[in-house]
């Protein structure tokens, strides 16, 4: 398999605070990767850098052979890297369907003028957007909420809606920031199944941050562990589980409990 995304010694500091001291990772096409670590380890900052929301203070991000360091988020998104947010960022006043349509229309199929004159290209692409959006709602099993306001959905469904929204944009790499946060065990198990299914179906590469070790261990093929801004270990779930550094820094509490 070929390397899709490579982070080389990425750093990010906010004034005095070094949120990420050194992050290097190599993500191969088609894999499901996990990023774990204690609170404040810099996981979300890493996702922010990879998606272009934050510009790294140093280091390089190579995506599909191109250096995308410092690209604006919209350009990164159009290149195929899409992300969700730890604290949901849905368009609350829109319906669930409209939220997903925003994703579906990322690769615009008609021009401004087509929209004014309602040409054939306009109606053709509009129905394409909506069909795709409906398909993604079905994929994430939330199609019953199609016409409900996004912020009226149950919490777990809102998380699914965020995933549906980025799937509609036709991504190659998706970055999921704690997709199972706030879910009960049954819900997270369902979510794991849904992520695995869509990953296969759309041939996606996935990088996810998660605190729920069940989700991480059952889903990920390879895991990066961060502590205070640095990658302290990486490997397969089995390797991570038995890594003394990881146990000391992160898993320790659970192992004792």
């Amino acid at each position, binding site marked *: 398999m070929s390397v899709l995304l490579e982070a080389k010694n990425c750093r990010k500091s906010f004034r005095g605070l070094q949120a990420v001291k050194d992050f290097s990772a190599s993500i191969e096409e088609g894999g499901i990767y996990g990023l774990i670590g204690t609170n404040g380890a810099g996981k979300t900052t890493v996702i922010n850098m990879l*998606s*272009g*929301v934050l510009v790294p203070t140093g280091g390089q991000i190579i995506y599909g052979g191109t250096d995308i360091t410092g690209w*604006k*988020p*919209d*350009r*990164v*998104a*159009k290149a195929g890297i*899409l*992300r969700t*947010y730890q604290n949901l*960022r*849905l*368009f*609350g*006043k*829109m319906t669930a369907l*409209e939220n997903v*349509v*925003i*994703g579906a*229309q*990322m*690769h*615009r199929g*008609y021009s*401004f003028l087509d*929209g*004014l004159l*309602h040409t054939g290209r*306009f109606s053709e*692409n*509009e129905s394409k*957007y909506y069909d795709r959006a409906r398909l993604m709602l079905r994929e994430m099993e939330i199609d019953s909420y199609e016409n409900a306001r996004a912020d009226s959905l149950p919490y777990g469904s809102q998380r699914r809606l965020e995933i549906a*929204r*980025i799937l509609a*944009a036709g991504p190659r790499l998706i970055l999921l920031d704690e997709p199972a946060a706030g879910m009960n065990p049954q819900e997270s198990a369902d979510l794991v199944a849904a992520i695995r299914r869509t990953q296969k179906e759309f041939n996606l590469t996935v990088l996810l941050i998660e605190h729920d070790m069940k989700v991480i261990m059952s889903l990920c093929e390879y895991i990066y562990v961060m502590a205070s801004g640095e990658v302290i270990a990486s490997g397969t779930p089995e390797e991570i589980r038995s890594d003394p550094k990881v146990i000391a820094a992160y898993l320790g509490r659970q192992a004792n409990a």
Partner: protein
Amino acid sequence: MNKTYRITDCSLFRLIVFVIVPLIILIRCAMQPTSYITGIVITMGIYIVLAASLNLINGFSGMFSMGHAAFMAIGAYIAAFFTLAPQVKENMTPGLPAWLINLQIPLAPALLIGGAAAALVALIVGFPVVRTKGHYLSVVTLALIVVVRAVIDNQGDITHGSRGLTGLPAKSTILSVYIAVVVTLFVLYRITHSDYGRGLIAMRDDPVAAQTLGINLVKKKISCFAISAFFAGIGGGLWGHYLTTISASNFYFSKSFDIVEMSIIGGMFSLSGSIPGAMFYTIVPEFLAPLESGFNLGGIRLPTMFGLSNIIMAVLLIVLIIFRGQGIMGTSEIILDTWFSKDTYLAPFRKEEYQRLAGVFRKKSS
């Protein structure tokens, strides 16, 4: 067919209220072009154009611009340069290039040129303006009004300075103004109902999420600013050709605030809101104006009070904001949905529409 219909769901009802009645009023006004009421109706139409274009930016894009008067001024002056008679321009605006002095064209193309000029200015100033956010953006757009006024007042050769331009042809009639109203609303309606418009709303609701879904915020903000300015320029041109005498003082802060106020009253999240907003803003003061010259209240003769109608308008605005923060229309587009839907105009030829309307009334009486 268990769905219960409200009267506002009936195409026939909507056709009558939003199309036929307004048309009758407009035709009556057009037959009496010099009457006082016609003047009010023309003003209302111009305000609809202005408020609707302001809604695009303030309501849909999430930027809050107060600079509409600046774009109105640009549109009005540029359009006037093209419609004024050559001999007038020779005296008033000798600084214009010779070809322009000798050129006189009809209102419609002049308005388009005026709008395009306003849009061009918006594109240029857009880059620094959209870097600011929230209140800062509002203040920067206010500054734009000051700049435009300073330019107009000081470029006497071209603009006739603070004396202003006189003798604009009175071409803002019911017909021309309301054609502009329909065209403006149609274009804005189509824009907000396309991927571009959905993107605008997404940007307003959550700019960060919108950006990571591939929306280029800078491009979107500047283009929206320019589209809004284009129609503000057209509105300004119409206003100029209604007043026939314009100076920079016609396009100062108070004009911007007027437009912002009617946009808020009507509901800035809805293009349809520009219509009740403009109606409210033009009609209510007409009823309040007589009060200023003193009136009887319970046997007591109240003295003349200038500015009373402004105070009452302000109180009404506050009451409206408290009890209906989203304005009269909220987010409903019922008026424009009616105008620009084929179903509305086919309704009289459909039997089920009559049945539906009858059904609504039967339910009401039972």
